[in-house]
């Protein structure tokens, strides 16, 4: 089971190493880990997608909370959240096939962000399943490269955030 765990951490050197080291030392599996600034310059938010049963994820949550510079930990499982990935995909596509691909890109509300004679780079964002679906439909053209941010998430307002 995938859980999205969100941790507010002090914006200090070494915090990422503490968190990543804890995951490695305890054998927890990270699917993705994203760190970014927040509205408070002293805090960063880490959004970590972990795979494991409830018991393991409970340990992940507790072990994270034990790390001194980790200020707050939330498990977004079973909570209404908005979860998004951002992805850049370079697709091999000759000019004659571009109109066809454009329709697909529109359907996924993607944007073309770079064009070369043989390729298009597309930016897509959304839930993870959408990324997967987009990659599936692009596969027949030939995918040259993918860069993904990993998931970030925020609880929906009024969802009873602790």
């Amino acid at each position, binding site marked *: 089971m995938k859980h999205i765990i969100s941790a507010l951490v002090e914006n*200090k050197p070494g915090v990422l190493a*503490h968190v990543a080291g804890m995951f490695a*030392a305890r054998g927890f599996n990270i699917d993705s880990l994203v760190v970014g600034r927040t509205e408070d310059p002293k805090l960063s938010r880490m959004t970590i997608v972990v795979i494991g049963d409830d018991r393991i994820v409970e340990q992940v949550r*507790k*072990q994270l*909370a*034990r790390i001194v*510079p*980790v200020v707050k930990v939330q498990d977004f499982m079973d909570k209404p959240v908005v979860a998004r990935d951002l992805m850049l995909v370079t697709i091999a596509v000759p000019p004659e096939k571009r109109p066809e691909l454009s329709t697909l890109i529109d359907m996924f509300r993607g944007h073309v962000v770079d064009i070369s004679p043989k390729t298009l780079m597309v930016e897509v964002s959304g839930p993870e399943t959408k990324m997967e679906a987009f990659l599936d439909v692009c596969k027949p053209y030939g995918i040259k490269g993918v860069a993904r941010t990993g998931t970030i998430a925020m609880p929906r307002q009024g969802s009873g955030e602790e």
Partner: protein
Amino acid sequence: MPAKPETPASAAETMKSGAQIVVDTLIDLGVDTMFGYVGGVVLPLFDKLYDAPIRFIIPRHEQGGCHMADAYARASGKTGVILATSGPGACNLVTGLATAMMDSIPMVALTGQVRTDLIGNDAFQEADTTGITRPVTKYNSIVKDVRQLERTVREAFHIASTGRPGPVLVDLPVDVLVNKCPCNGKAELDLPGYRLRTKGHARQISMAAEAINKAEKPVLYVGGGVIIANAAEELRALAEKAHVPVTMTLLGLGSYDQRKPESLDMLGMHGSAYANYAVQESDLLIAVGARFDDRVTGKIPTFAPHAKIVHIDIDPASISKNVHVDIPVVGDAKHILTELTKEVEYRPREAWFQKIAEWKKKYPFRYDGKSANIKPQYIIEEVCRQTNNEAIIATGVGQHQMWSAQFYKFLRPRQFISSGGLGTMGFGLPAAIGAQIAKPDATVIDFDGDHSFNMTMTELATAVQHELPIKVCIFNNGYMGMVRQWQELFYGHRYSCSYLKNPNYAEVARALGAVGITVDKNADVPQAVAQMLAEKRPCVADFHVEPEENVWPMVPAGKSLSEMDGLTILESMA
């Protein structure tokens, strides 16, 4: 951030060097004893320590110093302090930090580091100390700006000694020690992510009390957390009021007077049969400051199969980590036990205590008293008798450690000092030194294995220099006995690499300036023990013991607690 000292904001704030700030802060925090070893980048600090009112103990190896600081903490309850230089000095702390980490010991390690502008350049004696020690510390950090120094040192002591204690390391680049900044000695902690829970949840405590009042076959399973919490008195009150037997982990020994009828002594792999049977039959297990280690639980699915489990622990991550807990109570054992005692009622539990008495009668810890060779257990009993159960006992790791736990009956917390979680051979001698420094008037004895002792015996020189009257009993069986026992039982008697030729330890002791005694006859044991106890100088008594003695009972790894080997052997010695 480059360290750019600012000009003083007010005249009241004096400009101080980083080294001065460290020393002043240590003194302000009440540090009067430190352990450590010199080196290039920590010279500014040592220069300030030269006139400081701090007793400084120099070990012969930083690992030894780290164990000394650890045992100083275990014996006194204060935070141990160790100082080492960069690179090799810091690397030599790793085993000691890991030992303290596993057993939740409050300790602060200060390490020197190369200049901030050289960090990352493979500079002379540079090591990524915070990187290397991160997994073996509760927290660590490097100070890159002298203005952060006082606060960071204060935070280190706070984190090390509160909540679930542990070692905290602060890495100090030499330029930070040299640079000056205004310092008023009043830096405040800034730890938004470090929150402590001391009081237990009232409803959880009531649920636990209700479970205790209903239980017919309850057992208190108590660990190192009771000692850390200074909650032995509260534990006694609960056990007596509710009338519940008490078993202790290796690290919990001393938290309950073992001469009392409620004591079931140690449980687990080499615990008593009566403790293990009681746990397996119990209908309620009340764990206090214990962490369900695999040496204690045996095979998890069959551990205490009929019991509801109450778990009192300050660390939420300890709860339901290994074993599912029915009633968790997170908080400080001292507070929770006090509250719990108010709500429990006395129950006679005659049938339960009757059953326990039968197990105790049938399966006490025993050894063959008729053997011609000296039995290690006999030495421990004799020392226990001659010291009236009052000594502080440090140990190495191995069979002798288990016999110490089985045959010395402890009265109070902080009497038994042993590396449980990491199981660090070589801990015993430096631990005895650290304990003796913390408790100058106590009789401190290191029950050591011949090969454990060999790992850090150079520290005898430290004991000699500081005129510490520590006693070392070497249980000299020639073997790495614990390993040999496993090879005998599980590897068809193939004693691969578990035998070493020993030096003459009494002569080694004498060469280092200590007293050395060799004992190889049963009849000489009482006299040798008396002589050792009377010595004012460090004394090593090298007992040549039965070479192939085994520790019984034994729950083989992966078996349930009730599947103990050796019970028939023990019965045959009756």
